[in-house]
């Protein structure tokens, strides 16, 4: 079993118009910039994929990564908890004129809905958002005298995530706080695509230290010198 692919274009093959796409990372920490840019490259060359629903904690920063996808016109809707950033122009401009949709989800609910998608739990109850505008239209129920909101799982057609180490079977580790949503998204997507800083042979990662077991991973591409979104953003880089 070898899940490695040789290049970024192959890694993101099969992500098509109208799909729901989870993208790992919290701000720039864990953002799979190279995979996202590979998808933008394809869009520029072929006009596809467009009309994507993108799930990420944020909605892009500057003119790179998810922001560059939005700028390019590939994103129909964001599902996120915090569509603001140091430089939120890309999302804000399109949102103000109704050219992009937004499903705003509390951060813990977003994480738990993705976790539920991967774990086969179609719905769960949370105290979060009870009595607020974000619970509007959702079923509520009382348990042990306290009120809770019913939330549904989130799944996706594909996930793009960034790992530190991967073995060829897809077992993954992450780097520091870059872990964030990625292990959850890996489990919740039909097609999980990983860019790893280094790919090792099976057994090259201690079984105790694997964070995402390979069963949740479909494709791995090595990106040895991955760029950091925050660094690019601070340098004023625009993609394309």
């Amino acid at each position, binding site marked *: *079993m070898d899940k490695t692919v040789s290049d970024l274009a192959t890694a993101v093959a099969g992500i098509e118009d109208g799909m729901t796409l989870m993208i790992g990372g919290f701000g720039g920490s864990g953002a799979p910039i190279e995979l996202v840019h590979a998808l933008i490259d394809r869009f520029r060359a072929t006009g596809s994929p467009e009309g994507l629903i993108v799930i990420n904690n944020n909605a892009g920063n500057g003119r790179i990564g998810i922001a560059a996808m939005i700028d390019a016109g590939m994103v129909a809707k964001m599902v996120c908890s915090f569509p603001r950033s140091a430089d939120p122009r890309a999302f804000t401009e399109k949102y103000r004129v109704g050219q992009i949709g937004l499903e705003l989800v509390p951060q813990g609910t977003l994480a738990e809905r993705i*976790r539920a*998608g*991967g*774990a*086969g*739990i179609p719905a769960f109850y949370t105290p979060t958002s009870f009595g607020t505008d974000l619970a509007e239209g959702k079923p509520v129920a009382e348990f042990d005298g306290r009120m809770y909101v019913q939330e549904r799982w989130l799944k996706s057609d594909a996930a793009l995530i960034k790992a530190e180490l991967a*073995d*060829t*079977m897809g*077992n993954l580790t992450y780097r520091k706080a870059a872990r964030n949503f990625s292990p959850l998204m890996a*489990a919740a997507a039909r097609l999980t695509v990983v860019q790893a800083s280094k790919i090792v*042979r*099976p*057994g090259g990662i201690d*079984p*105790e230290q*694997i964070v995402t*077991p*390979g*069963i*949740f991973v479909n494709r791995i591409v090595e990106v040895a010198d991955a760029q950091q979104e925050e660094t690019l953003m601070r340098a004023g880089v625009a993609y394309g």
Partner: protein
Amino acid sequence: MTEKLTNAQIAWRAAQDIADGAYVNLGIGFPEMVAKFQPPGRQAVFHTENGVLNFGESPPEGEEDWDLINAGKKAITLKPGAAFFHHADSFAMVRGGHLDVAILGAYEVAENGDLANWSTGPKGVPAVGGAMDLVHGAKRVAVITDHVTKDGRPKLVKRCGLPLTGVGCVTRVYTSLAVVDIESQRFVLREKLPKLSLDVLQAVTGAELLVDGTIGDLIVPEV
């Protein structure tokens, strides 16, 4: 009808349908035997409920590490690329549809796909383990079983009489006599022992066996 496959032969047959690289959970007991019969060149990744992926054979006696066991509490070893995880993550794999195949034993399988394999009734101490999760999680749920009970009654039935493990969950049954698919809530015969007549097979089966296309010969080596 004295000729039938041994348990090892049933396990061998089931193993032929497991693709290279498939993620597989084998129920405790008889189904564990399937792992021995992977065809050359194919390597499945075996999952055990208690938090290990890609485990291998039992270690030699005396070399057991009792922190490294499978769901049947037997000592196991690891293959390269193995991973440990906790029970909630383990059943996220199961319930979340990440396993390609689960192979379980059965007391009864009904033509509507219902499975009974955890309780023989109100006597004794009930125990369910992970079976009820497995039948609703894996992409393909197969059963391996003798075709009839020890006293000769059919195990493939119209409707289960014993307490259910899952509703409409089984899609293929490997027995000591035949390979039967469950499609649209009916048994469809795919393979039978070459010398066994359809009439004799039907007589030991508790619901109608449909035929849809050719019936293959169930030919299994001595194993």
